C-alpha cells in the first residue's frame, strides 16, 4: 500500500496545486499554468501566455499556493511530532505558548504602525514565549514535558490577555481588521519571499524530524521504554522540540495562527495508517499540504472579492471532515 499511497498523494497534490492556480477572478487554463511555470524555470523559452496572465500566475497565485502547501505540511508535521513527543493527543504545534506569543508580537507591531514587520514580530514572539515557558519549567526543577506544558499554558494565557488588552485599548478600524484576520490565520498577500521562507524552513527542519521517526516510535510506551531501547531521550526531545518550534514559528509568521491543521491532520492520518512515524510523518505532511491548499483556495474564492481568513475555513471544513473520519473508523478508536 505504501508506494501507491505516496504516489497517489503526490499526484493529488500536484493536480490540486495546478487547479488551485487556475481558480480566481481571471480564468486561466492548466496548460497556461504549466507553460508559465516552465517558462520561468527556463525550460520554455517563448511563452505564448500574455504578460498580464503570466503575472497573475507567477507573481500572485503560485507563491500563495506554494506558501499554503508549505504551511499545511509544516503545521501537520510539527503537530504529529508534538503529539508523539508529549504523548498527548491534544498537543498541537502551538503548545508551549507559541501561537499566543506570536499573536502578542504581531499585534504589538500592528498597533505601533509597523504592519509590514508583523512576520518578524510573530516569529520573535513565538520563540520568546517558548523560551520563557522552558525557562520557567527549568526553574521549577527541570524541564520535563509536564512542567513545560504547564508553564506553556500560563505563558500562553498571559500573552493572550496582553494581546486582548492591546486590541481592546488601542486598535481601531483597519488595524482591528488586520489583527483579527491575522489571529484567525490568513495567507492573503503571500508572495515569493513568504513561499521561499516556508520552503526553506521545511527543508531545514523536516529532515531532522523525519529521521527521528524511529526514535518517536520508541516513545509509544513512554520515555523509560524508549531509553531502554537505546534512544537518547533527552537529546531527541530537545532536538525535535527545537525543530518543531522553529518550523511553527515561521509558519505562524507567514500565515498567522491557523488552527486545526496541526491538531487534526495527524490524527486523521494515524487513524488511516496507524502510529508508525516512518509512515505517519511524511503522510501527514502530504495530507496537510493538500488540505491547506484547498482550504486557502476556498478562503480566497468562495466569497470573491472578499476573502475569508483561512483559519475559519480549516475549522469549518476540517471539523465535519474529521467527524466523518471518526465515524468511518469508529470500530478502532
Amino acid at each position, binding site marked *: 500500500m505504501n508506494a501507491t499511497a505516496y504516489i497517489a498523494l503526490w499526484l493529488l497534490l500536484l493536480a490540486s496545486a495546478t487547479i488551485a492556480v487556475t481558480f480566481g477572478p481571471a480564468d486561466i487554463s492548466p496548460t497556461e499554468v504549466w507553460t508559465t511555470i516552465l517558462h520561468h524555470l527556463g525550460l520554455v523559452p517563448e511563452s505564448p501566455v500574455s504578460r498580464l496572465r503570466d503575472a497573475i500566475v507567477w507573481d500572485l497565485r503560485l507563491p500563495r499556493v506554494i506558501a499554503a502547501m508549505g504551511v499545511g505540511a509544516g503545521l501537520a508535521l510539527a503537530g504529529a511530532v508534538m503529539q508523539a513527543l508529549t504523548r498527548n493527543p491534544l498537543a498541537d504545534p502551538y503548545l508551549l505558548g507559541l501561537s499566543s506569543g506570536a499573536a502578542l508580537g504581531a499585534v504589538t507591531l500592528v498597533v505601533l504602525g509597523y504592519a509590514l514587520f508583523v512576520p518578524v514580530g510573530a516569529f520573535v514572539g513565538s520563540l520568546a514565549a517558548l523560551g520563557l515557558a522552558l525557562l520557567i519549567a527549568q526553574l521549577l526543577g527541570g524541564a520535563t514535558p509536564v512542567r513545560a506544558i504547564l508553564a506553556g499554558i500560563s505563558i500562553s494565557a498571559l500573552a493572550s490577555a496582553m494581546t486582548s488588552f492591546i486590541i481592546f485599548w488601542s486598535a481601531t478600524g483597519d488595524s482591528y481588521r488586520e489583527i483579527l484576520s491575522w489571529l484567525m490565520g490568513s495567507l492573503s498577500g503571500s508572495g515569493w519571499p513568504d513561499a521561499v521562507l516556508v520552503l526553506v524552513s521545511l527543508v531545514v527542519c523536516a529532515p531532522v524530524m523525519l529521521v527521528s521517526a*524511529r526514535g518517536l*516510535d520508541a516513545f*509509544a*510506551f513512554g520515555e*523509560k*521504554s524508549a531509553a*531502554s531501547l537505546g534512544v537518547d531521550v533527552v537529546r531527541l526531545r530537545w532536538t525535535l522540540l527545537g525543530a518543531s518550534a522553529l518550523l511553527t514559528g515561521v509558519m505562524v509568521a507567514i500565515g498567522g495562527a491557523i488552527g486545526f491543521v496541526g491538531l487534526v491532520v495527524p490524527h486523521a492520518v494515524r487513524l488511516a495508517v496507524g502510529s508508525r512515524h516512518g509512515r505517519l510523518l511524511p503522510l501527514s505532511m502530504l495530507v496537510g499540504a493538500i488540505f491547506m491548499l484547498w482550504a486557502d483556495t476556498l478562503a480566497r474564492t468562495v466569497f470573491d472579492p472578499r476573502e475569508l481568513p483561512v483559519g475559519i475555513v480549516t475549522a469549518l471544513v476540517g471539523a465535519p471532515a474529521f467527524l466523518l473520519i471518526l465515524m468511518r473508523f469508529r470500530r*478502532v478508536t
Partner: protein
Amino acid sequence: MEGLKVARVNISRGGKGIVVDAAFSAPAGKVTGLVGPNGAGKSTLISAIVGLERPEAGSLAFEGADLTAMGRRERAAICAYVEQSASTEERLGVSDVVALGRIPHVSAWTAGLGHDDEAIVAGALEKVGMAEFATRQFNTLSGGEQQRVHIARALAQEPRLLVLDEPTSHLDIRAQLQVLHLLGDLAQAGGTVLLALHDLNLALRFCDWLVVLHAGGVVAEGPPADVLGEDLLAQVYGVRARLIGGPSGPVIVYEGTV
C-alpha cells in the same frame, strides 16, 4: 557461569540512600528473582542495571564487560527491559510493537526493516506463543497477552540479559504462570534472566536463584528454598510465616504480621 555481576552499587535521591552497597550476581542460564518489600529499592536497582539511571558508585558487569561504559545502543543490543505494565494510546499492531525491539540494531537512516529483522520479529512472537496475534491491534489484547508481546519485543532486541520489573503483577494467575514458564525456557536457552517479583511462592517455584533486597542492600542470595527462611521473612517482611512441603517444593503459608 558468568552472567551479571553487581558490585557495591549506590544510588541516592535527595541525600537519602535508595540502594546501598548492593552486590549480587545473576548467573547465566538461570532465572534470578529480585525480591524485597515495597521501598526496598528493587525498581531503582533495576533502573540502574538497564541504564535508565547512573549509579553513583559501584560496578555493573555483564559477561565481564562494564555495562556503564557502553553506549546506549550498544547496551540496548545486549540488555532488554520489560516494565511492570506499559500501555499506549498509539494505534500500533502487535508486530509493530515487537519491531520496536529492532531499534538498537537498525540505523536511523534506513527507511524500513530488512527481511532479517522481520524474521526476528516473527520468531520472537513465535517464542512467546503469540504468532497468531501478529496482525492484531496491541490495544485490543488482554493484559497477559500484552505482557507476552512486550517480552517478544524484548526478545527481538536479541538480548543476552533480560531484565523485568514485576512483569506479572497485573496479570491473572494463568497469565502469570505462562510468563514465568516462558522466562524459564529463555534461561534454559542460555540467557540471563533477572526479574523483580512480589509473590514469594512464585519466586520459590520459578526462580533458580534468589536475591533479597532490604532497605537498599542485599541481605541474602542463593537458591530460593535456602534463602527464604522463616527468620528472614520475619526480619525483612515483618510477617510470621511457615514453610511447608508441597508436592512441587516448599510453600510459604502466612500466619500474620510480626
